[in-house]
């Protein structure tokens, strides 16, 4: 039986205690409402306690094993008489399992001192949540749709998260919500849940599908606070208050709290005031400066670079968790122990610049190395009224003639500015038969086929099919909503901090025997990269092929540098830049359509299903190839004779003669 996160009769409360005056765990649990949680349990419930095993030293394993066992004892003491719970202490491998030894769940649990039985004799098991998964454990439209869910976590009668608390340059702070992500079983969690997806959307999806009923943050071992709440968001919120930091320094918390905010009516049972001696500096690691946080996030923003350098920078007990690759071992020994001085800061800066440089290179020249992105729609499709779709059609039908009469700036491209937006029309005919073309290029997914599409989602609107329109009845189509991410346009804006263009839209699809059409209009942009991205794309049968027309208006937010540099003051330059940007984009888009008609895959980014060698191995292989290339040149420089056998001339009969034996 799945229990509600917060029964209506309970106050939304977080119990807060300082380490020095923590008192008794049972008292905290009682105050947080544990008895209510246990009251309605089945006879033999599965109580799954998700623990933080993220520590990188035997001395600091995350949450102490004894604290977890004490929790089990406390629950055991309060269980109803007829209830015989089965306790499972759960975790999943974090990204470090790919590059360091003993990072699997059972090894970490052993190093952390878990004994499989508590002081009062209650048995418990340690489980790796990746061992048993539900292949497609999340709802369509969720950021986690199509990914596996841990069966034990999904089926648990009671889900509890017990976490430590520490500051982290890239993640702001790590408390219960970050630990909760350990319930997700992907083998490469950093890439899957932090690079391909927004970590806040991931946490929201997990919280929606499989919320914990109790969150405990136990930082007493490092002199920090002890917090318990039935609401995990409130627990992290209170933890941030105790640290004296803005909870939104955590990107996870910042995104999640917009969808799942801290309960409006909440209460503190205890003092949320940060005591000076328990300020962030006292919580296991120094609080990162904003500058350090910015550099850490820049380094982490590039998936490949983060995967390469994480093993080099992680402070760890190399005896307990030995790096698996010699390169990682040497780099970790050299870099991880830097003490925060000038060299450390210079290294952070250098790595951030290198990561930015790699992202710039990949965006412009190696798009297939980028991560494909997965997003949630971010809005309930049913919340958009049908009238909004009708208004969109009327508005865009009015825009179309304006776009078609804009000045012709390049082959097939017309554009003009209206109110700061670019109003454009691009029309070309492809010598591809209409039936063949529309069978391969689905108008309903035309946005996803455009150039530089990084990822997105399309969901149907709740209303039924469209009513007939025009002389011919539609043979398909309807209303839909779409969220899509594109690389910054033009791509070189990434050099100036340009973010992927992220737009959520309403759309109408129409299909008749000779004409397919898609209308789209912006609802909002989650990252404020677009004020408008509206348009119509159509495929029309012609005598010899298919006419493609794209009409629209776009008003994208420029990075700060380009906002300062007002390019409209130089009309000739503005015209050249806009024309080049749109010409490149539409040429790439039409090439994508042609490629789809050929049966090719046009998606940019790396196929997540393909295996990837560990970054240190890839670096070693690259170094080997560099050495192979350099060797003959070095030999030439040294004046050594190369192997000339290949160049020996044949004799009159065409035979090349060897030296003989």
């Amino acid at each position, binding site marked *: 039986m799945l229990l509600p996160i917060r029964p209506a009769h309970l106050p939304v409360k977080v119990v807060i205690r300082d380490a020095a005056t923590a008192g008794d765990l049972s008292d905290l649990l009682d105050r947080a409402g544990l008895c209510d949680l246990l009251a309605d349990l089945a006879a033999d419930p599965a109580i799954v306690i998700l623990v933080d095993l993220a520590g990188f030293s035997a001395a600091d394993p995350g949450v102490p094993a004894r604290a977890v066992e004490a929790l089990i004892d406390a629950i055991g003491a309060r269980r109803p008489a007829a209830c015989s719970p089965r306790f499972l202490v759960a975790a999943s491998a974090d990204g470090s399992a790919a590059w360091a030894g003993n990072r699997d769940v059972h090894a970490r649990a052993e190093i952390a001192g878990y004994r499989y039985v508590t002081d009062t004799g209650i048995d418990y098991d340690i489980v790796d949540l990746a061992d048993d998964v539900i292949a497609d454990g999340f709802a369509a439209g969720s950021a986690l749709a199509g990914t596996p869910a841990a069966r034990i976590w999904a089926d648990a009668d009671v889900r509890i998260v017990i976490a430590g608390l520490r500051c982290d340059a890239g993640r702001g702070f790590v408390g219960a919500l970050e630990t909760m992500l350990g319930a997700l079983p992907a083998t490469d969690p950093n890439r899957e849940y932090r690079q391909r997806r927004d970590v806040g959307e991931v946490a929201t999806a997990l919280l929606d599908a499989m919320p914990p009923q109790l969150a405990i943050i136990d930082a007493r071992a490092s002199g920090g606070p002890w917090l318990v709440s039935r609401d995990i968001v409130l627990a992290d919120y209170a933890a941030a208050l105790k640290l004296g930091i803005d909870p939104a320094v955590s990107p996870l918390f910042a995104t999640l709290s917009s969808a799942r905010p801290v309960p409006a009516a909440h209460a503190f049972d205890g003092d949320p005031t940060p005591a000076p001696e328990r300020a962030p500096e006292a919580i296991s690691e120094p609080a990162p400066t904003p500058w350090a946080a910015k550099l850490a996030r820049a380094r982490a923003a590039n998936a490949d670079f983060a995967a390469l350098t994480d093993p080099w920078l992680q402070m760890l007990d190399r005896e307990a968790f030995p790096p698996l690759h010699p390169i990682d071992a040497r780099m970790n020994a050299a870099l991880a122990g830097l003490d925060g001085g000038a060299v450390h800061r210079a290294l952070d800066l250098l790595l951030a610049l290198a990561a930015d440089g790699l992202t710039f290179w990949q965006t412009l020249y190696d798009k297939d190395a980028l991560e494909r992105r997965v997003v949630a729609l971010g809005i309930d499709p049913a919340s958009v009224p049908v009238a909004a779709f009708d208004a969109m059609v009327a508005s865009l039908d009015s825009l179309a003639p304006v776009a078609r009469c804009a000045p012709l700036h390049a082959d097939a491209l017309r554009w003009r500015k209206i109110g700061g937006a670019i109003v454009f029309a691009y029309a070309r005919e492809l010598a591809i038969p209409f039936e063949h073309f529309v069978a391969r290029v689905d108008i309903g997914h035309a946005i996803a086929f455009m150039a530089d599409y990084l990822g997105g989602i399309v969901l149907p609107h709740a209303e039924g099919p469209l009513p007939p329109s025009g002389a011919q009845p539609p043979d398909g189509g309807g209303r839909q909503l779409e969220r899509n991410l594109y690389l910054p346009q033009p791509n070189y804006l990434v050099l100036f901090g340009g973010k992927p263009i992220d737009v959520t839209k309403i759309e109408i699809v129409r299909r008749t025997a000779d004409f397919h059409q898609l209308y789209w209009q912006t609802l909002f942009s989650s990252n404020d990269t677009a004020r408008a991205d509206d348009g119509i794309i159509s495929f029309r049968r012609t005598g010899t092929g298919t006419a493609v027309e794209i009409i629209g208006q776009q008003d994208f937010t420029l990075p700060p540098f380009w906002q300062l540099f007002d390019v409209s003051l130089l009309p000739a330059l503005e015209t050249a830049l806009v024309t080049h940007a749109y010409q490149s984009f539409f040429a790439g888009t039409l090439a994508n359509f*042609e490629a789809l008609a050929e049966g090719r895959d046009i998606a940019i980014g790396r196929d997540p299903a393909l295996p990837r060698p560990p970054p240190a191995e890839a670096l070693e292989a690259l170094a080997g190839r560099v050495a192979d290339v350099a060797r003959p040149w070095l030999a030439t420089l040294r004046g050594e004779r190369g192997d000339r056998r290949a160049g020996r001339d044949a004799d009159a*009969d*065409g*035979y*090349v003669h060897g030296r003989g034996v």
Partner: protein
Amino acid sequence: MLAVTGAAGLIGAHVVRAAIADDVPVRAVVRPTSCCAALAGVDPVLVHADVLGPRAALEAAFAGCDTVVHTAATFAYGGDGEALHRVATDGTAAVIAAAAAVGVRRLVVTSSSVVFGYSETGGIIDEAGGLAEPAGQPAYVKAKIAQDRAALVLAERHGLDLVLACPTMSVGGIATTLGPSNALILAYVADQTRSTYAGGCNIVSAADVGAAHLLLARQGRAGQHYLLGSENLEWRDIHALIGVLTGVGGPNIEIGARFAGIAAAAEEIGARLRGVPALSTREQASMLGRHYWYDHGRAATLGYRPRPAAQALIEAVSWLAASRHVSRAQRATLRLADAVQRFRHGAAA
């Protein structure tokens, strides 16, 4: 019954296709490790044998055949010259010996037009001038000259009717590997400077070359070479045509052999670092400025009628653009000419 060695290669696969289209019983001889994607859809009888492998396998492959077409070769500019030579000479010698041992009467060996050399001034070369001197030639050319010389001697010794087919730059689709000829198309598409160079070559459709092998098997005169080409074109015209067909435009600039050599060296280094084959090599760059122009009059007397070079390039571009040899990123830069699309959909229809 016809046996075709190298049947998984560009020329060999087209020989097999031509034979099947002409209702000639055919046995496709491929190495056990060969990818046979080029034979998809025609499904010939496949026999495994390696020209450098056990003789018995070759004899078994040829047993019962009256004609063998030997197309198996390593076609590469740059790389291991000794391996090229071994496949060309030792491999051909093994084929001849095996064919003779099982009673094959006729043998068509695929050579190359380059065995007749080149012209510095744009002169058109035919078979009458005889084989070129190998000295100073690229390893591939040396290997092919050696192959032809050895084959003529060995065929006479074994009493086989030997005909030598000498295709020019054969482009076209339905190939497993890219090959240097098709790679020249891609090299131009990949070159952001859209450079061309002096000199020229003769472009022919691989499909026409395949069909011509069948023609030579039937009608070729023993001991003769037959040049199999189509039109002689300057490189700048070839590149302009590729530019139109692929939509990349150009050429914009003509570069000399020395600069081309530097660019080819950079391409070789880049390709090695990426772990992929180079689209152009220094050895190919050393051939620039020359005219590899040939006259196929001798083959024409047998009825050889190749399609125009432009059509050969249309078909090659049509295949290449949709193939795995063009990356997704590269494909996104192409805008195929209507002629390519029409060929494609006409062919599909």
